[in-house]
């Protein structure tokens, strides 16, 4: 084999590797939240209070620049159970005396796990945080923490 041929083969392999890395990145699947290790475990009240005390600090702690924010396990009392426009179950964990709670949205795969959950139950859910709790002057109300891609951990 000539040197020229050898160089060509090495180049071809390099190009192939580059293409497969590019394709892999492009088709990278969405993060599987339930398979991701939990970053923090909280009571709904404590997480809400951390946000209401210093939202900026809490955002720095929990939110990620590319949206791969912290995975949390939240324990709280079920205040409300609804469904969103995407037919996903939404469970609000909120202590009666708290100003805001944690709104946990489930997925088409985990919806059924909530079937036996009732208002007043104490449950633990795992999901990714999307935004924090705060008082909004324009809405004139407190906004809940938003947790997405949730599943039940303890019921």
């Amino acid at each position: 084999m000539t040197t020229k041929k050898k160089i060509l083969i090495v180049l071809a392999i390099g190009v192939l590797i580059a293409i497969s890395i590019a394709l892999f990145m492009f088709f990278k699947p969405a993060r599987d939240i339930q398979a991701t290790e939990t970053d923090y475990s909280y009571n709904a009240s404590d997480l809400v209070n951390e946000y209401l005390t210093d939202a900026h600090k809490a955002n720095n702690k929990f939110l990620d620049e590319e949206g791969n924010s912290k995975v949390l396990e939240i324990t709280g009392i079920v205040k409300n159970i609804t469904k969103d426009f995407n037919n996903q179950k939404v469970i609000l964990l909120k202590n009666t005396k708290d100003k805001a709670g944690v709104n946990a949205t489930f997925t088409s795969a985990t919806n059924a796990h909530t079937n036996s959950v009732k208002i007043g139950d104490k449950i633990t859910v795992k999901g990714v945080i999307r935004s924090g709790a705060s008082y909004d002057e324009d809405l004139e109300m407190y906004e809940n923490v938003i947790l997405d891609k949730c599943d039940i951990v303890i019921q």
Partner: protein
Amino acid sequence: MKKVILSMLAIVFLSLTTFAQKQVSSKTHIKFFSTTPAENIEANNYASVSTLDPASGDIVFSVPMQSFEFEKALMQEHFNSKKFLNTKANPKAKLTGKIENITAINFVEDGTYTADIAGDLTINGVTKPISEKATISIQNGKVSLNSIFNVTLVDYEVAFKKGKPSTNIAKTVEVTVNAEY
């Protein structure tokens, strides 16, 4: 007799205050749609909160930006990143507006109305005045709203100067809003 009149008055007063009460919606859907010859990109958000005050016409939407879901994970990361919507620094987008023809909307009777909404839209920490139309429907006392409008990204300092995103993302994206109060 006096009691009857008084209780009737009380009922009328109560029903009036119910209708005048601020309506809150946490059942919402906001969709971004971008189309270029290269590809169509769509993102969906089901976690926004909105209020509508039938008395004053005040309308507010608060949109958690990290709740936008894309088909491709890489696109979602681009969207959230500093180069695009910088969602860690600006976790929420917001619309505060007024329905200018609020008196034309009868909130106690079933019907469909076109609302003229004028106000401010804040995306990526940048606030711009907007004026758009929305359809408000009243059915059995339930209020719902939908609207489709365009957002020019460069107005909100969202711009890709070079590379793939600059050719694959439209300069103007279509936003669809649905809310049930």
